[in-house]
């Protein structure tokens, strides 16, 4: 074990899935022509004023309720003042004191059997900035303010994570949660879900936190893990060489897989926060919170507990099946067809289906094998029409679009042989062809039974019912 311990906290910016911006009636749709979705308010024209979007507030509360956070009855918007071309007003409307969501927490499982609670310090509403485009003109940057004013929920964690793996598990957890809650589309490529990581290291056993750096520009979970690991190594090297870590913002460069200092943010910032006089405190009534609580869907944690307690799934399988909303939906749709086969179904989803999806690089929602098709496959395994092994072949055929389960079984002649006369004929043939092994078995070498089963299955092209073959072989070999 290394003598160094890393301490990681994440700041996640989730763009809220509202139709219009947080303080204006301009559209939030992604990908429009530059500055065509920047209205007078978004541009910060002289004289314009912000008016708060109800849905953004409601989405933030939804998140707060889901992480069991404290939600104050008053929430205040503040101006964060700094000059930057993608920040039209020279200040960002954000929250400082009295954020909408106070202290809460989530649970993560970074690996099978591991559990950890991660504290969430706060989550506040703010407006997104525009975008600077640096490669369009030789000596100039271009500013597109379409994104300016898109509502963001900034979710700030406690520095509770101790490895890049934990940080990724936490980020995935939040990602899954905001999608369960339908408050963010979670698209990391389009920047709807962005992670900044605060990373520091200290000697194991130290209480004091080391100097931290903030990593930005991370647009996938894979890069999050790599950026943090790179940064931990960089900081360890510095300290072991007798240097010190400089508190700064660093940009992750995915192409070079390294972090580098952001020169433009070098200057120590004095944001001069103060309550925005154009906006008034937001009053949140207990009844509003209760209404939102009542309208929440079943959350991943609750779902997981239900899978464990009511369905008897293992903790690990329950965690994986609930890790995202789409997987859980797939599972539950299929389960409705085969309510008694949840273990078998879970194994198929987490095994062959997940493997095939990963290989093809597609999301579960786009799987060519629908939940209904997979459920039918499980039905046929359970009623002994096909063996587990044959089922893999049927699955593969379904994936390739050859039709439904029964059609494939029929067309390929894969129906399991359960007729004892037919199986007996196969067994007799195998016993007759392998006298040496028969001798060994009779001499007490039980292991040879496996050989016989394999031979019989091979003869039947995998279609013989393995349970039946086993029992009948045993009977025959004894005599």
């Amino acid at each position, binding site marked *: 074990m290394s003598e160094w311990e890393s301490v990681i906290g994440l700041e996640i910016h989730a763009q809220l899935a509202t139709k219009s911006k947080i303080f204006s009636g*301009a559209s939030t749709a992604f990908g429009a022509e530059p*500055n065509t979705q920047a209205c007078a308010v978004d541009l910060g024209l002289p004289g314009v004023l912000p008016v708060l979007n*109800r849905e953004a507030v409601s989405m933030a509360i939804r998140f707060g309720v889901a992480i069991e956070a404290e939600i104050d009855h008053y929430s205040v918007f503040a101006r964060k003042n700094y000059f930057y071309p993608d920040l039209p007003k020279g200040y960002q409307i954000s929250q400082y004191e009295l954020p909408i969501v106070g202290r809460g927490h989530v649970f993560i499982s970074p690996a099978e059997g591991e559990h950890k609670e991660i504290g969430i310090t706060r989550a506040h509403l703010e407006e997104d900035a525009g975008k600077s485009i640096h490669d369009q003109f030789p000596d*100039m940057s271009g*500013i597109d303010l379409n994104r300016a004013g898109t509502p963001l929920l900034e979710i700030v964690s406690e520095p509770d994570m101790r490895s890049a793996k934990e940080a990724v598990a936490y980020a995935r957890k939040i990602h899954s949660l905001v999608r369960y809650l339908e408050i963010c589309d979670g698209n990391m490529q389009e920047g709807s879900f962005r992670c900044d990581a605060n990373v520091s290291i200290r000697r194991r056993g130290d209480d004091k936190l080391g100097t931290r750096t903030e990593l930005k520009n991370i647009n996938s979970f894979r890069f999050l893990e790599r950026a943090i690991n790179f940064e931990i190594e960089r900081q360890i090297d510095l300290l072991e060489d007798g240097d010190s870590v400089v508190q700064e913002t660093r940009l992750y460069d995915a192409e070079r897989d390294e972090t580098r200092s952001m020169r433009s943010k070098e200057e120590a910032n004095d944001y*001069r926060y103060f309550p925005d006089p154009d906006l008034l*405190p937001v009053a949140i009534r207990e009844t509003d919170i209760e209404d939102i609580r009542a309208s929440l869907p079943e959350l991943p944690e609750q779902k997981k507990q239900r899978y464990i307690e009511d369905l008897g799934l293992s903790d690990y399988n329950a965690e994986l099946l609930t890790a995202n909303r789409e997987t859980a939906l797939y599972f539950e749709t299929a389960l409705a067809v085969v309510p008694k086969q949840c273990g078998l179904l879970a194994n198929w989803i987490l095994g062959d289906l997940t493997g095939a999806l990963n290989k093809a690089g597609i999301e579960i929602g786009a799987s060519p094998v629908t939940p209904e098709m997979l459920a039918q496959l499980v039905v046929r395994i359970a009623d002994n029409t096909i063996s587990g092994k044959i089922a893999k072949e049927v699955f593969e055929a379904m994936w390739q679009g050859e039709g439904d389960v029964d059609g494939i079984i029929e067309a390929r002649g894969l129906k399991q042989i359960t007729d004892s006369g037919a199986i007996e004929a196969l067994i007799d043939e195998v016993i007759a062809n392998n006298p040496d092994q028969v001798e060994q078995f009779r001499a007490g070498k039980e292991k040879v039974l496996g050989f016989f089963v394999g031979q019989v299955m091979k003869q039947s092209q995998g279609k013989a019912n393995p349970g039946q073959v086993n029992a009948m072989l045993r009977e025959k070999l004894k005599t």
Partner: protein
Amino acid sequence: MTLKTEDVRNIAHLARLHIDEDVLEQYVADLSSILDLVDQMNQVDSSGVAPLSNPLDATQRLRDDNVTESDQRDKFQQIAPDVEAGLYRVPKVIE
């Protein structure tokens, strides 16, 4: 409250204001005398008084989530100092 020249330079930088060197001292004097006026606030003990940021102590009204604005880029960019390909242009930003 007397400010130093360096303080005024720092404030001007924070506010992104270019101040000519030859009038800097005038700003130092003016700002210091304004701060003297402001320091009169300390004559009253206000500890425990809740700050008042809006004179009516009202709360925020919320807007329904509807798209009400349409594209007015051409009109808005007519008054911009430097625009090309629909983008506002500034000297290269280094990140």
